[in-house]
């Protein structure tokens, strides 16, 4: 998880922001090498040599409850790429969110790494709606380490 610099934090709070901040999304079935990459933008974005296809993706954050936190993600399934991936998956699907500033596209401001999973998804020929949950909700053993702010991308906005 990259630590945003003070300058990056300052820039995101500035008005106007003349360089677009673009969210990149990666999907990968656990254990598979194929990664599907999408960018919330109207043209393809290259980040560290990987091309992220332009996509329409909207994210809804949940209301507070005593259940596990899970955001809802809705994206286009016109090209059926993500739909086929979900349909063919036999293991869990990992998701990764990356935020970049297009003036320095190779530097991630936020990168969730492999901390997100897609516990369920449904869709039709035009859209896929899926839930994004933290990997911690799997209740699987994780390598011991101290919990740091880097594990919680939301605190970057604090």
């Amino acid at each position, binding site marked *: 998880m990259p630590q945003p610099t003070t300058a990056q934090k300052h820039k995101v709070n500035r*008005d106007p*922001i003349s360089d677009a901040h673009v969210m990149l999304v990666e999907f990968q079935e656990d254990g598979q090498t194929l990664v599907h990459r999408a960018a919330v*933008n*109207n*043209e393809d974005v290259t980040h560290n040599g990987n091309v992220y296809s332009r996509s329409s993706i909207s994210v809804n954050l949940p209301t507070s409850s005593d259940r596990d936190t899970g955001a809802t993600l809705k994206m286009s399934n016109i090209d059926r790429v993500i739909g086929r991936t979900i349909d063919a998956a036999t293991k869990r699907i990992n998701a990764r969110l990356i935020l970049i500033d297009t003036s320095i596209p190779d530097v991630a401001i936020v990168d969730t790494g492999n901390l997100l999973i897609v516990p369920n998804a449904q869709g039709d020929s035009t859209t896929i709606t899926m839930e994004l949950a933290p990997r911690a909700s799997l209740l699987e053993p994780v390598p011991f380490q101290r919990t740091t702010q880097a594990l919680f991308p939301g605190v970057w906005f604090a």
Partner: protein
Amino acid sequence: MTNTSPAFMLLPLIGSLTEVRPPSYASDGSELGSVRRRQRMTRDLRGFKFDVWATSVEKVTFDAFYTTDLSRGVQSFNWTHPDTSEVIDVLLSGYPDFTMLSADLYSASINIEEV
């Protein structure tokens, strides 16, 4: 495969050509009158709207182009801007409205979107 638009679509023959650009930025407003903006997308996708005359033969040509070359509107094609001669990759927003004005004369309202 890159498709090229039929000849009669190269010039807006009736009235004017309108170019629109949906905002590529996110914006808010307030009752105080101040507006804040940030860039959301990295590109402006233009839209063009114009009307052309078409003969019956040109309509048949266009229908074949629409049905076969464009796979009924799914494929993009190269359209040449009549003023700047810029070649733009566009999609038809939908099948154009063809209005028959008299025998062998149609007017067509064409909406295209840059992709």
